[in-house]
Protein backbone atom coordinates (compact mmCIF):
# COMPACT_ATOMS: atom_id res chain seq x y z
CA UNK A 1 0.00 0.00 0.00
CA UNK A 2 1.32 3.42 -0.95
CA UNK A 3 2.08 5.52 2.16
CA UNK A 4 0.21 8.51 0.71
CA UNK A 5 -2.97 6.57 1.56
CA UNK A 6 -2.20 7.22 5.25
CA UNK A 7 -2.41 10.97 4.69
CA UNK A 8 -5.45 10.61 2.45
CA UNK A 9 -7.27 8.68 5.18
CA UNK A 10 -6.40 11.29 7.82
CA UNK A 11 -7.67 14.03 5.51
CA UNK A 12 -10.87 12.08 4.91
CA UNK A 13 -11.61 11.23 8.53
CA UNK A 14 -10.32 14.30 10.38
CA UNK A 15 -9.69 16.96 7.75
CA UNK A 16 -10.05 19.88 10.17
CA UNK A 17 -7.66 18.58 12.80
CA UNK A 18 -4.24 20.25 12.93
CA UNK A 19 -1.58 17.95 11.48
CA UNK A 20 1.54 20.10 11.78
CA UNK A 21 2.35 23.28 13.67
CA UNK A 22 0.77 25.34 16.45
CA UNK A 23 -2.63 24.47 17.93
CA UNK A 24 -4.10 27.56 16.32
CA UNK A 25 -3.04 28.28 12.75
CA UNK A 26 -1.30 24.97 12.05
CA UNK A 27 -1.70 22.99 8.85
CA UNK A 28 -4.76 20.69 8.90
CA UNK A 29 -4.83 17.12 7.57
CA UNK A 30 -7.00 18.30 4.67
CA UNK A 31 -4.50 21.06 3.82
CA UNK A 32 -1.55 18.71 4.21
CA UNK A 33 -3.02 16.29 1.68
CA UNK A 34 -4.02 19.06 -0.74
CA UNK A 35 -0.54 20.56 -0.66
CA UNK A 36 1.06 17.14 -1.09
CA UNK A 37 -1.19 16.61 -4.13
CA UNK A 38 -0.33 19.98 -5.64
CA UNK A 39 3.37 19.35 -5.09
CA UNK A 40 3.09 15.86 -6.59
CA UNK A 41 1.78 17.38 -9.80
CA UNK A 42 4.76 19.75 -9.94
CA UNK A 43 7.14 16.85 -9.31
CA UNK A 44 5.69 14.86 -12.19
CA UNK A 45 5.87 17.89 -14.49
CA UNK A 46 9.52 18.49 -13.54
CA UNK A 47 10.66 15.14 -14.89
CA UNK A 48 12.49 14.36 -11.63
CA UNK A 49 13.02 10.72 -10.79
CA UNK A 50 13.65 11.36 -7.09
CA UNK A 51 12.65 14.01 -4.57
CA UNK A 52 15.34 15.22 -2.18
CA UNK A 53 15.03 17.31 0.96
CA UNK A 54 18.03 19.27 2.20
CA UNK A 55 16.65 21.25 5.08
CA UNK A 56 15.88 21.57 8.77
CA UNK A 57 12.47 20.46 10.08
CA UNK A 58 9.36 22.31 8.89
CA UNK A 59 5.93 21.55 7.45
CA UNK A 60 7.79 20.92 4.19
CA UNK A 61 8.94 17.55 5.57
CA UNK A 62 5.53 15.79 5.68
CA UNK A 63 4.34 17.63 2.55
CA UNK A 64 7.38 16.48 0.58
CA UNK A 65 7.25 12.91 1.93
CA UNK A 66 3.62 12.46 0.87
CA UNK A 67 4.02 14.42 -2.37
CA UNK A 68 6.85 12.13 -3.47
CA UNK A 69 4.72 9.10 -2.58
CA UNK A 70 1.75 10.47 -4.57
CA UNK A 71 4.01 11.17 -7.53
CA UNK A 72 5.54 7.70 -7.33
CA UNK A 73 9.08 9.03 -6.77
CA UNK A 74 11.41 7.99 -3.93
CA UNK A 75 11.80 10.61 -1.18
CA UNK A 76 15.44 11.20 -0.17
CA UNK A 77 16.07 13.34 2.92
CA UNK A 78 19.73 14.43 2.92
CA UNK A 79 21.84 15.47 5.87
CA UNK A 80 22.22 19.25 5.93
CA UNK A 81 25.41 18.80 7.91
CA UNK A 82 27.23 16.97 5.13
CA UNK A 83 30.56 18.31 3.94
CA UNK A 84 30.34 19.69 0.40
CA UNK A 85 32.05 16.78 -1.33
CA UNK A 86 29.85 14.19 0.41
CA UNK A 87 26.72 16.18 -0.41
CA UNK A 88 27.77 16.44 -4.05
CA UNK A 89 28.38 12.69 -4.15
CA UNK A 90 24.88 11.99 -2.81
CA UNK A 91 23.25 14.53 -5.15
CA UNK A 92 24.93 12.87 -8.13
CA UNK A 93 23.50 9.56 -6.95
CA UNK A 94 19.90 10.84 -6.85
CA UNK A 95 19.87 12.95 -10.05
CA UNK A 96 17.70 13.69 -11.95
CA UNK A 97 15.92 15.06 -8.90
CA UNK A 98 14.20 18.06 -7.41
CA UNK A 99 15.57 18.98 -4.00
CA UNK A 100 13.66 21.08 -1.47
CA UNK A 101 16.17 23.27 0.37
CA UNK A 102 16.13 25.93 3.05
CA UNK A 103 17.63 29.34 2.35
CA UNK A 104 18.36 30.10 -1.29
CA UNK A 105 19.63 26.59 -2.01
CA UNK A 106 22.82 27.88 -3.64
CA UNK A 107 24.77 25.10 -1.96
CA UNK A 108 23.12 22.73 -4.45
CA UNK A 109 24.26 24.68 -7.49
CA UNK A 110 26.35 23.09 -10.17
CA UNK A 111 25.30 19.45 -9.91
CA UNK A 112 23.89 18.18 -13.19
CA UNK A 113 20.29 17.04 -13.00
CA UNK A 114 19.50 18.72 -9.67
CA UNK A 115 16.72 21.30 -9.62
CA UNK A 116 16.48 23.24 -6.36
CA UNK A 117 13.15 24.32 -4.91
CA UNK A 118 13.54 26.91 -2.14
CA UNK A 119 11.37 25.81 0.76
CA UNK A 120 9.84 29.24 1.52
CA UNK A 121 8.82 29.77 -2.11
CA UNK A 122 7.45 26.26 -2.39
CA UNK A 123 5.32 26.54 0.77
CA UNK A 124 3.98 29.92 -0.33
CA UNK A 125 3.26 28.59 -3.79
CA UNK A 126 1.41 25.54 -2.46
CA UNK A 127 -0.67 27.74 -0.14
CA UNK A 128 -1.56 30.18 -2.90
CA UNK A 129 -5.13 31.12 -3.78
CA UNK A 130 -4.77 29.44 -7.19
CA UNK A 131 -4.59 26.07 -5.50
CA UNK A 132 -7.70 24.48 -6.89
CA UNK A 133 -8.92 21.16 -5.53
CA UNK A 134 -8.86 19.73 -9.02
CA UNK A 135 -5.18 20.56 -9.24
CA UNK A 136 -4.33 18.63 -6.14
CA UNK A 137 -6.01 15.26 -6.06
CA UNK A 138 -6.45 12.13 -8.18
CA UNK A 139 -2.80 11.53 -8.86
CA UNK A 140 -1.84 7.99 -9.71
CA UNK A 141 1.20 6.90 -7.76
CA UNK A 142 2.00 4.28 -10.37
CA UNK A 143 4.03 1.20 -9.62
CA UNK A 144 7.13 2.64 -7.93
CA UNK A 145 7.78 0.30 -4.97
CA UNK A 146 10.36 2.52 -3.23
CA UNK A 147 9.07 5.14 -0.79
CA UNK A 148 12.25 6.39 0.88
CA UNK A 149 16.00 6.25 0.29
CA UNK A 150 18.19 7.03 3.31
CA UNK A 151 21.94 7.40 3.04
CA UNK A 152 23.44 5.62 6.04
CA UNK A 153 25.90 7.24 8.39
CA UNK A 154 29.01 5.30 7.40
CA UNK A 155 32.20 7.32 7.54
CA UNK A 156 34.19 5.58 4.81
CA UNK A 157 33.67 4.43 1.25
CA UNK A 158 30.86 5.22 -1.14
CA UNK A 159 27.60 6.41 0.37
CA UNK A 160 25.25 3.49 0.95
CA UNK A 161 21.53 4.15 0.51
CA UNK A 162 19.03 2.04 2.43
CA UNK A 163 15.82 1.30 0.50
CA UNK A 164 12.47 1.45 2.29
CA UNK A 165 9.53 0.31 0.23
CA UNK A 166 5.94 1.45 0.62
CA UNK A 167 5.07 -2.06 1.78
CA UNK A 168 7.73 -1.99 4.55
CA UNK A 169 6.63 1.37 5.94
CA UNK A 170 2.89 0.76 5.67
CA UNK A 171 3.28 -2.68 7.32
CA UNK A 172 5.07 -0.96 10.21
CA UNK A 173 2.38 1.70 10.59
CA UNK A 174 -0.66 -0.56 10.17
CA UNK A 175 0.66 -3.18 12.56
CA UNK A 176 1.64 -0.79 15.37
CA UNK A 177 -0.76 2.18 15.18
CA UNK A 178 -4.55 2.38 15.48
CA UNK A 179 -6.06 4.81 12.97
CA UNK A 180 -7.00 8.20 14.53
CA UNK A 181 -6.69 6.77 18.04
CA UNK A 182 -5.03 9.91 19.44
CA UNK A 183 -6.93 12.35 21.55
CA UNK A 184 -7.31 15.68 19.66
CA UNK A 185 -5.19 17.40 22.34
CA UNK A 186 -2.18 15.16 21.78
CA UNK A 187 0.93 16.66 20.23
CA UNK A 188 4.37 15.25 19.54
CA UNK A 189 7.59 17.26 19.58
CA UNK A 190 9.89 16.09 16.79
CA UNK A 191 13.51 17.20 17.11
CA UNK A 192 15.25 14.42 15.19
CA UNK A 193 16.30 15.56 11.71
CA UNK A 194 14.35 14.46 8.64
CA UNK A 195 17.27 12.38 7.34
CA UNK A 196 17.07 10.10 10.40
CA UNK A 197 14.69 7.11 10.01
CA UNK A 198 12.75 8.39 13.05
CA UNK A 199 12.11 11.63 11.14
CA UNK A 200 10.15 9.64 8.56
CA UNK A 201 8.48 7.16 10.91
CA UNK A 202 7.38 10.01 13.20
CA UNK A 203 5.49 11.63 10.30
CA UNK A 204 3.79 8.39 9.29
CA UNK A 205 2.74 7.21 12.75
CA UNK A 206 1.70 10.68 13.93
CA UNK A 207 -0.44 11.36 10.86
CA UNK A 208 -2.10 7.94 10.98
CA UNK A 209 -2.84 8.20 14.71
CA UNK A 210 -4.07 11.80 14.39
CA UNK A 211 -1.40 13.30 16.62
CA UNK A 212 -0.29 16.87 15.88
CA UNK A 213 3.40 17.29 15.01
CA UNK A 214 5.37 20.21 16.42
CA UNK A 215 8.80 20.54 14.84
CA UNK A 216 12.03 21.87 16.24
CA UNK A 217 14.45 23.02 13.57
CA UNK A 218 17.39 21.87 15.62
CA UNK A 219 17.70 20.44 19.09
CA UNK A 220 18.47 22.74 22.00
CA UNK A 221 17.60 21.56 25.53
CA UNK A 222 16.25 24.86 26.93
CA UNK A 223 14.22 25.49 23.78
CA UNK A 224 12.95 21.91 23.85
CA UNK A 225 11.62 22.35 27.40
CA UNK A 226 10.10 25.74 26.53
CA UNK A 227 8.31 24.34 23.46
CA UNK A 228 7.13 21.30 25.42
CA UNK A 229 5.52 23.62 27.97
CA UNK A 230 4.12 26.25 25.56
CA UNK A 231 2.68 23.77 23.09
CA UNK A 232 1.43 21.39 25.82
CA UNK A 233 3.41 18.57 24.26
CA UNK A 234 2.14 15.13 25.27
CA UNK A 235 4.57 12.94 23.30
CA UNK A 236 8.21 13.16 22.27
CA UNK A 237 11.11 11.06 21.10
CA UNK A 238 14.72 11.83 22.05
CA UNK A 239 18.10 10.19 21.72
CA UNK A 240 19.99 9.43 24.95
CA UNK A 241 22.37 12.39 24.78
CA UNK A 242 19.40 14.77 24.47
CA UNK A 243 17.65 13.35 27.54
CA UNK A 244 20.47 14.10 29.98
CA UNK A 245 20.61 17.72 28.80
CA UNK A 246 16.82 18.08 28.98
CA UNK A 247 16.88 16.79 32.56
CA UNK A 248 19.48 19.41 33.52
CA UNK A 249 17.09 22.14 32.31
CA UNK A 250 14.08 20.62 34.06
CA UNK A 251 16.01 20.28 37.31
CA UNK A 252 17.01 23.94 37.04
CA UNK A 253 13.40 25.09 36.62
CA UNK A 254 11.81 22.76 39.13
CA UNK A 255 8.35 22.79 37.49
CA UNK A 256 8.58 19.47 35.65
CA UNK A 257 6.56 18.77 32.49
CA UNK A 258 3.09 17.78 33.69
CA UNK A 259 1.58 17.56 30.18
CA UNK A 260 4.25 15.18 28.89
CA UNK A 261 2.45 11.84 29.11
CA UNK A 262 4.85 9.86 27.00
CA UNK A 263 8.56 10.05 26.25
CA UNK A 264 10.32 7.55 24.04
CA UNK A 265 14.02 7.23 23.47
CA UNK A 266 16.30 5.27 21.19
CA UNK A 267 19.07 5.58 18.67
CA UNK A 268 21.85 4.70 21.08
CA UNK A 269 22.69 3.24 24.44
CA UNK A 270 20.84 4.85 27.35
CA UNK A 271 22.97 4.93 30.52
CA UNK A 272 20.91 3.51 33.38
CA UNK A 273 21.61 6.44 35.74
CA UNK A 274 20.11 8.81 33.14
CA UNK A 275 16.84 6.91 32.68
CA UNK A 276 16.51 6.41 36.44
CA UNK A 277 16.99 10.14 36.95
CA UNK A 278 14.40 10.84 34.25
CA UNK A 279 11.87 8.60 35.97
CA UNK A 280 12.44 10.44 39.25
CA UNK A 281 12.19 13.93 37.71
CA UNK A 282 9.18 13.12 35.49
CA UNK A 283 7.06 10.86 37.70
CA UNK A 284 3.87 11.20 35.64
CA UNK A 285 5.55 10.49 32.29
CA UNK A 286 5.47 7.03 30.67
CA UNK A 287 8.77 5.97 29.13
CA UNK A 288 9.42 3.78 26.10
CA UNK A 289 12.79 2.53 24.94
CA UNK A 290 12.73 1.67 21.25
CA UNK A 291 15.36 -0.24 19.31
CA UNK A 292 15.41 -0.26 15.55
CA UNK A 293 17.48 0.37 12.47
CA UNK A 294 17.05 2.32 9.27
CA UNK A 295 16.87 -0.99 7.40
CA UNK A 296 13.95 -2.19 9.57
CA UNK A 297 11.62 0.84 9.11
CA UNK A 298 12.36 1.94 12.68
CA UNK A 299 11.30 0.11 15.85
CA UNK A 300 11.70 -3.67 16.14
CA UNK A 301 11.83 -4.04 19.94
CA UNK A 302 10.59 -1.90 22.78
CA UNK A 303 10.62 -1.61 26.55
CA UNK A 304 7.10 -0.50 27.47
CA UNK A 305 5.98 1.98 30.15
CA UNK A 306 4.87 -0.94 32.36
CA UNK A 307 8.27 -2.62 31.92
CA UNK A 308 9.92 0.62 33.01
CA UNK A 309 7.75 0.97 36.12
CA UNK A 310 8.16 -2.67 37.10
CA UNK A 311 11.94 -2.56 36.71
CA UNK A 312 12.23 0.79 38.48
CA UNK A 313 10.25 -0.47 41.48
CA UNK A 314 11.93 -3.87 41.71
CA UNK A 315 14.58 -4.90 44.20
CA UNK A 316 15.37 -7.99 42.10
CA UNK A 317 18.61 -7.15 40.22
CA UNK A 318 17.59 -9.17 37.13
CA UNK A 319 14.30 -7.25 36.85
CA UNK A 320 15.94 -3.91 37.62
CA UNK A 321 18.52 -4.67 34.90
CA UNK A 322 15.76 -4.51 32.29
CA UNK A 323 16.16 -0.74 32.31
CA UNK A 324 19.35 -1.48 30.37
CA UNK A 325 17.51 -3.68 27.87
CA UNK A 326 15.56 -2.57 24.79
CA UNK A 327 12.57 -4.64 25.87
CA UNK A 328 10.92 -7.34 23.82
CA UNK A 329 10.71 -7.79 20.03
CA UNK A 330 7.46 -6.64 18.38
CA UNK A 331 5.00 -9.51 18.04
CA UNK A 332 4.63 -8.75 14.33
CA UNK A 333 8.15 -9.88 13.48
CA UNK A 334 10.67 -12.64 14.29
CA UNK A 335 13.97 -12.07 16.05
CA UNK A 336 16.82 -14.52 16.64
CA UNK A 337 20.31 -14.38 18.09
CA UNK A 338 22.76 -16.46 16.04
CA UNK A 339 26.37 -17.51 16.50
CA UNK A 340 28.99 -16.92 13.81
CA UNK A 341 28.11 -20.20 12.09
CA UNK A 342 24.53 -18.94 11.68
CA UNK A 343 22.93 -21.20 14.29
CA UNK A 344 20.44 -19.76 16.82
CA UNK A 345 21.82 -19.60 20.37
CA UNK A 346 19.95 -20.13 23.67
CA UNK A 347 18.92 -17.37 26.09
CA UNK A 348 21.82 -15.66 27.81
CA UNK A 349 24.28 -16.25 24.96
CA UNK A 350 25.57 -13.34 22.89
CA UNK A 351 25.46 -13.39 19.11
CA UNK A 352 24.36 -11.40 16.09
CA UNK A 353 20.77 -10.14 16.11
CA UNK A 354 18.76 -11.37 13.09
CA UNK A 355 15.29 -10.14 12.25
CA UNK A 356 12.57 -11.02 9.73
CA UNK A 357 9.19 -9.45 8.96
CA UNK A 358 7.19 -7.29 6.61
CA UNK A 359 8.62 -4.03 7.93
CA UNK A 360 12.18 -5.28 7.40
CA UNK A 361 13.72 -4.06 4.17
CA UNK A 362 17.34 -5.11 4.59
CA UNK A 363 17.98 -3.68 1.17
CA UNK A 364 20.38 -1.09 -0.23
CA UNK A 365 20.42 0.47 -3.65
CA UNK A 366 21.86 -2.20 -5.89
CA UNK A 367 21.98 -5.02 -3.36
CA UNK A 368 19.98 -6.84 -0.70
CA UNK A 369 21.56 -7.76 2.63
CA UNK A 370 18.90 -10.39 3.32
CA UNK A 371 20.15 -13.94 3.75
CA UNK A 372 18.48 -17.33 3.36
CA UNK A 373 14.86 -17.37 4.49
CA UNK A 374 14.54 -13.59 4.25
CA UNK A 375 16.42 -12.89 7.49
CA UNK A 376 18.29 -9.61 7.95
CA UNK A 377 21.57 -9.82 9.87
CA UNK A 378 21.65 -6.50 11.74
CA UNK A 379 25.40 -6.43 12.45
CA UNK A 380 24.38 -5.68 16.05
CA UNK A 381 25.62 -7.92 18.83
CA UNK A 382 23.17 -8.79 21.60
CA UNK A 383 21.44 -11.42 23.73
CA UNK A 384 17.99 -12.33 25.04
CA UNK A 385 17.32 -13.10 28.70
CA UNK A 386 15.10 -15.99 29.77
CA UNK A 387 12.04 -13.69 29.78
CA UNK A 388 12.67 -12.55 26.23
CA UNK A 389 14.16 -9.12 26.95
CA UNK A 390 16.74 -8.04 24.41
CA UNK A 391 20.08 -6.54 25.44
CA UNK A 392 22.24 -4.76 22.86
CA UNK A 393 26.02 -4.91 23.16
CA UNK A 394 26.75 -2.72 20.15
CA UNK A 395 27.90 -3.14 16.58
CA UNK A 396 29.66 -6.42 15.85
CA UNK A 397 32.63 -4.45 14.54
CA UNK A 398 33.00 -2.86 17.98
CA UNK A 399 33.51 -6.16 19.80
CA UNK A 400 36.94 -6.19 21.45
CA UNK A 401 39.05 -9.28 20.80
CA UNK A 402 41.54 -9.59 23.65
CA UNK A 403 43.77 -12.64 23.71
CA UNK A 404 41.22 -14.57 21.63
CA UNK A 405 38.35 -13.69 23.94
CA UNK A 406 35.43 -11.65 22.58
CA UNK A 407 34.53 -8.81 24.94
CA UNK A 408 31.45 -6.66 24.59
CA UNK A 409 32.02 -2.93 25.19
CA UNK A 410 28.38 -2.58 26.31
CA UNK A 411 28.78 -4.97 29.21
CA UNK A 412 31.79 -3.05 30.54
CA UNK A 413 30.15 0.31 29.87
CA UNK A 414 27.12 -0.65 31.97
CA UNK A 415 29.38 -1.34 34.95
CA UNK A 416 31.35 1.90 34.56
CA UNK A 417 28.19 3.96 34.06
CA UNK A 418 26.98 2.90 37.51
CA UNK A 419 29.92 4.79 39.11
CA UNK A 420 28.41 7.78 40.91
CA UNK A 421 31.02 10.17 39.46
CA UNK A 422 30.48 9.16 35.80
CA UNK A 423 28.12 11.12 33.54
CA UNK A 424 29.11 9.36 30.30
CA UNK A 425 31.30 6.38 29.46
CA UNK A 426 32.52 4.41 26.46
CA UNK A 427 34.81 1.42 26.05
CA UNK A 428 36.83 0.56 22.94
CA UNK A 429 39.56 -1.85 21.91
CA UNK A 430 43.00 -0.41 21.24
CA UNK A 431 45.73 -2.37 19.38
CA UNK A 432 48.17 -4.07 21.72
CA UNK A 433 51.25 -6.19 20.92
CA UNK A 434 50.69 -8.67 23.72
CA UNK A 435 46.91 -9.17 23.59
CA UNK A 436 45.97 -8.13 20.06
CA UNK A 437 43.60 -5.61 21.58
CA UNK A 438 43.26 -4.21 25.06
CA UNK A 439 40.30 -2.63 26.81
CA UNK A 440 40.43 1.16 27.16
CA UNK A 441 37.69 3.20 28.83
CA UNK A 442 36.80 6.84 28.31
CA UNK A 443 34.93 8.48 31.17
CA UNK A 444 33.32 11.91 31.47
CA UNK A 445 33.20 12.93 35.13
CA UNK A 446 30.62 14.87 37.05
CA UNK A 447 31.87 18.45 37.59
CA UNK A 448 34.35 18.56 40.43
CA UNK A 449 34.80 14.77 40.77
CA UNK A 450 38.25 13.25 41.23
CA UNK A 451 39.73 11.26 38.32
CA UNK A 452 40.05 8.01 40.26
CA UNK A 453 41.32 5.60 37.60
CA UNK A 454 41.86 2.74 40.04
CA UNK A 455 38.31 3.12 41.40
CA UNK A 456 36.84 2.62 37.92
CA UNK A 457 39.10 -0.35 37.18
CA UNK A 458 38.19 -1.93 40.53
CA UNK A 459 34.49 -1.63 39.76
CA UNK A 460 34.89 -3.70 36.58
CA UNK A 461 37.26 -6.20 38.18
CA UNK A 462 34.70 -6.94 40.91
CA UNK A 463 31.61 -7.02 38.69
CA UNK A 464 33.09 -8.89 35.70
CA UNK A 465 36.35 -10.67 35.04
CA UNK A 466 39.87 -9.30 35.10
CA UNK A 467 40.15 -9.74 31.30
CA UNK A 468 37.42 -7.06 31.02
CA UNK A 469 39.14 -4.61 33.33
CA UNK A 470 40.24 -1.53 31.36
CA UNK A 471 44.00 -1.33 30.92
CA UNK A 472 43.58 2.46 30.91
CA UNK A 473 40.89 4.92 31.86
CA UNK A 474 40.99 8.24 30.02
CA UNK A 475 39.10 11.14 31.59
CA UNK A 476 37.65 13.34 28.84
CA UNK A 477 35.58 16.53 28.83
CA UNK A 478 33.08 14.94 26.46
CA UNK A 479 32.67 11.98 24.14
CA UNK A 480 32.38 12.46 20.36
CA UNK A 481 28.81 12.14 19.06
CA UNK A 482 27.31 12.80 15.65
CA UNK A 483 24.33 15.14 15.36
CA UNK A 484 21.80 12.33 15.78
CA UNK A 485 23.34 11.24 19.07
CA UNK A 486 25.32 8.25 17.84
CA UNK A 487 28.63 7.76 19.59
CA UNK A 488 31.46 8.08 17.06
CA UNK A 489 33.36 5.02 18.23
CA UNK A 490 35.86 5.18 15.40
CA UNK A 491 36.82 8.74 16.33
CA UNK A 492 37.14 7.83 20.00
CA UNK A 493 39.10 4.69 19.15
CA UNK A 494 41.59 6.64 17.04
CA UNK A 495 42.00 9.20 19.82
CA UNK A 496 42.58 6.57 22.51
CA UNK A 497 44.83 4.49 20.26
CA UNK A 498 47.03 7.54 19.73
CA UNK A 499 47.48 7.77 23.50
CA UNK A 500 47.71 4.13 24.53
CA UNK A 501 48.61 1.89 21.56
CA UNK A 502 51.57 -0.38 22.13
Amino acid sequence: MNISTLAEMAAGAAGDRVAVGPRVGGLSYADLFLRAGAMARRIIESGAERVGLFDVNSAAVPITLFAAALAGRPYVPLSFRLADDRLRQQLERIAPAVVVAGGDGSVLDGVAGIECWARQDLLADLAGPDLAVADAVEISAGEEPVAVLLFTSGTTGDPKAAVLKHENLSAYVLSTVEFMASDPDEATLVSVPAYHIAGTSAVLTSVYSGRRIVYMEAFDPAEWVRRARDERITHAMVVPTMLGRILDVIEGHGDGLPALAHLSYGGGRMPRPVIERAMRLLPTTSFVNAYGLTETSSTIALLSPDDHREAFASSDPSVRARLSSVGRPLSTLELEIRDDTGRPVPAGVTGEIHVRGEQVSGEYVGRSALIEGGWFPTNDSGWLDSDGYLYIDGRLDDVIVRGGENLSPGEIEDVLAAHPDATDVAVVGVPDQEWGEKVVAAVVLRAGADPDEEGFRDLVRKALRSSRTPAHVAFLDELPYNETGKLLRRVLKADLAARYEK
Partner: protein
Amino acid sequence: MVRPPAEPIDLRCGGHPVIPAGDEPPAGAVLNDAFAAGTAIGKRFAHPDSGLELLCVAGGAGILSVGEVPLQIKGAKPLPSSD
Protein backbone atom coordinates in the same frame (compact mmCIF):
# COMPACT_ATOMS: atom_id res chain seq x y z
CA MET B 1 -5.56 -3.75 -0.40
CA VAL B 2 -2.75 -4.50 2.02
CA ARG B 3 -2.11 -8.03 0.74
CA PRO B 4 -3.59 -9.70 -2.35
CA PRO B 5 -5.29 -13.08 -2.18
CA ALA B 6 -3.36 -16.15 -3.37
CA GLU B 7 -6.06 -16.79 -5.99
CA PRO B 8 -9.10 -14.88 -7.26
CA ILE B 9 -11.94 -14.71 -4.71
CA ASP B 10 -15.55 -13.55 -4.74
CA LEU B 11 -15.07 -10.32 -2.75
CA ARG B 12 -18.22 -8.33 -2.12
CA CYS B 13 -19.20 -5.08 -0.43
CA GLY B 14 -22.77 -4.48 0.71
CA GLY B 15 -23.68 -7.80 -0.87
CA HIS B 16 -22.38 -6.92 -4.37
CA PRO B 17 -19.13 -7.79 -6.15
CA VAL B 18 -16.51 -5.08 -5.63
CA ILE B 19 -15.48 -2.96 -8.61
CA PRO B 20 -12.23 -1.12 -9.37
CA ALA B 21 -11.90 2.27 -7.66
CA GLY B 22 -13.31 4.98 -9.93
CA ASP B 23 -15.56 2.66 -11.96
CA GLU B 24 -19.29 3.40 -12.23
CA PRO B 25 -21.38 1.05 -10.07
CA PRO B 26 -23.78 -1.14 -12.07
CA ALA B 27 -27.14 0.56 -12.65
CA GLY B 28 -29.81 -0.29 -10.12
CA ALA B 29 -27.50 -1.87 -7.51
CA VAL B 30 -29.06 -1.55 -4.06
CA LEU B 31 -27.44 -2.16 -0.69
CA ASN B 32 -28.34 -5.66 0.52
CA ASP B 33 -29.80 -5.30 4.04
CA ALA B 34 -28.02 -8.44 5.21
CA PHE B 35 -24.68 -6.73 4.46
CA ALA B 36 -25.45 -3.21 5.69
CA ALA B 37 -23.92 -3.07 9.18
CA GLY B 38 -21.39 -0.48 8.00
CA THR B 39 -17.59 -0.37 7.73
CA ALA B 40 -15.47 2.28 9.44
CA ILE B 41 -12.38 3.92 8.03
CA GLY B 42 -9.14 2.54 9.46
CA LYS B 43 -10.46 -0.97 10.15
CA ARG B 44 -8.47 -3.90 8.84
CA PHE B 45 -9.93 -7.13 7.51
CA ALA B 46 -8.35 -10.51 6.85
CA HIS B 47 -9.40 -13.59 4.93
CA PRO B 48 -7.04 -16.29 6.25
CA ASP B 49 -8.04 -18.87 3.60
CA SER B 50 -6.78 -16.75 0.71
CA GLY B 51 -4.29 -14.48 2.53
CA LEU B 52 -6.27 -11.38 1.51
CA GLU B 53 -5.84 -8.36 3.78
CA LEU B 54 -7.80 -5.16 3.37
CA LEU B 55 -7.77 -1.74 4.98
CA CYS B 56 -10.86 0.46 4.86
CA VAL B 57 -9.67 3.84 3.52
CA ALA B 58 -13.16 5.39 3.14
CA GLY B 59 -16.04 4.32 5.36
CA GLY B 60 -19.51 3.38 4.13
CA ALA B 61 -22.79 1.56 4.83
CA GLY B 62 -21.90 -1.86 3.43
CA ILE B 63 -19.82 -4.64 4.92
CA LEU B 64 -17.20 -6.78 3.21
CA SER B 65 -17.73 -10.47 2.54
CA VAL B 66 -16.25 -13.30 0.53
CA GLY B 67 -19.29 -14.88 -1.03
CA GLU B 68 -21.84 -14.58 1.76
CA VAL B 69 -19.35 -14.95 4.62
CA PRO B 70 -18.51 -11.58 6.21
CA LEU B 71 -14.81 -10.77 6.54
CA GLN B 72 -13.49 -10.65 10.10
CA ILE B 73 -11.91 -7.53 11.53
CA LYS B 74 -8.20 -8.01 12.06
CA GLY B 75 -7.39 -6.97 15.62
CA ALA B 76 -4.72 -4.29 15.75
CA LYS B 77 -1.94 -4.60 18.30
CA PRO B 78 -1.34 -0.96 19.04
CA LEU B 79 2.02 -0.26 20.63
CA PRO B 80 3.06 2.65 22.77
CA SER B 81 4.38 5.38 20.51
CA SER B 82 8.07 4.96 19.82
CA ASP B 83 8.78 7.50 17.06
